[in-house]
């Protein structure tokens, strides 16, 4: 049995004794997830911290049968997503809509600002492209962004994503599809901007 499979049972038995294991095991994933949602390292750390604290309090209150039957990974993503949404709501942080003028900014991010003479085939550019792809993902509307990240970056099943987002499977499917289409569009536009400039 892997640690991941064994965790719910051990947490049900001895929460305080096993909670540190839970944090060590999931901290990179939750932090990455929060970072992809917020694109800000400080925010991501605070979100991940809050998510674990909330998880602890919830586990403390749950009866042990409920803890034992938890799908831990999906449950933790769900908490992280909720914490992120609450923060965004509170701070109006980086909640970028498709029609916002920020789009040009994001597209411009495809250019390396400190490297105006672009070297198209260099490894460096590839890295930047990936970073810029993350920037573009961050500009997607929230409903597309979280679906896209959970489904394609974190690699969860459609059913798990539906459970996390509390949406019908059909909605998740169509949002996942639309998210990819929207992202392709954004990429094309940013390249277009690149060519024009």
């Amino acid at each position, binding site marked *: 049995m892997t640690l991941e499979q064994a965790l719910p049972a051990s947490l049900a038995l001895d929460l305080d*004794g096993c*909670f540190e294991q839970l944090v060590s095991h999931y901290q990179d994933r939750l932090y990455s997830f929060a970072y992809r949602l917020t694109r800000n390292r400080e925010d991501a*750390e605070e979100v991940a911290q809050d998510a*674990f604290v909330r998880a602890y309090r919830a586990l403390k209150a749950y009866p042990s049968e409920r803890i034992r039957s938890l799908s831990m990974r999906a449950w933790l993503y769900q908490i992280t997503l909720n914490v992120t949404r609450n923060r965004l709501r509170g701070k109006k942080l980086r909640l970028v809509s498709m029609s916002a003028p920020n789009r040009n900014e994001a597209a411009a991010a495809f250019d390396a600002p400190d490297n105006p003479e672009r070297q198209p085939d260099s490894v460096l550019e590839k890295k930047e492209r*990936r970073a810029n*792809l993350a920037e573009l993902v961050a500009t997607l509307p929230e409903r597309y962004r979280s679906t896209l990240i959970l489904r394609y970056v974190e690699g969860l099943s459609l059913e798990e994503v539906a459970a996390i987002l509390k949406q019908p499977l059909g909605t998740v499917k169509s949002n996942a599809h639309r998210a*990819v289409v929207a992202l*392709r569009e954004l990429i*094309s536009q940013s390249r277009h901007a690149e*060519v024009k400039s």
Partner: protein
Amino acid sequence: MKPQSTYPRRVSSLAVLQALRRFPEEKAPATLLPAVLQRVGLADTYWRLESPIGPVYIAHSRAGISMVSRAKSSAQFERNFAKRYGRAVHPETAAPPAAIRTLIRRLRSGERPKLQFDLRGLSEFERAVLMKALEIPDGEVRPYTWIAREIGRPEAVRAVGTALGKNPVPLLIPCHRVVRSDGRIGQYSMGGTRNKRTLLTVEGAHPETIERLGGRGIRFLGNEKGHSFCYPTCGGIETLVQSNKIAFRSEREARRAGYHPCQQCRPAMAS
């Protein structure tokens, strides 16, 4: 106008999905885990303090003091802690409270500060034993049988010994004040009988006197005035031994002589 025609090249959905899957996983900052444990009250930190039996390490979490132990080095203490609890312990940066400093330095502390202990993971029985040991005043000792009887498990004398041996916070929960009924000092988890004697001496409990009385078969001392009988160290051994006391070898002998158990040290059930 057909903007699409001016695009350099169209990105395929497959390429996008592949790129998304290749997103590198970010490493959580090293500050995340300690911060979480701190916030939920599960982080342990420790001090190193001098005691009459050499340096000791004292770990605590928000739930209370979780471990007291001797160790050759901080690294060894950290290993011992992780082995016992399966979680990490880090050096404390803040100074220890004065209450702990005084208690550890002299052990004999008139004020008997109220300390919180983190006894998670112990059984109900083990906790009862330790809480009872906490009631023994400094300068006094009690036999294992006393704890067993006081917690309502008179038959569990051996288990009391085992529970005291597992005391995670020796010195602060004074398991060194529990001795054998025959006056022999008995074992000690933190460095054996020698350290136990040292601690009792520091507290003024005169281990030699306790042993001498025990060796002569004396279990209780009677107080003529109030017609009560006590453990020899009740109220401090000096006063008892020096004043005119009647020696009893057993509870029965004391009761036959018309003496009743002292209400302070409770050497037997009141009847």
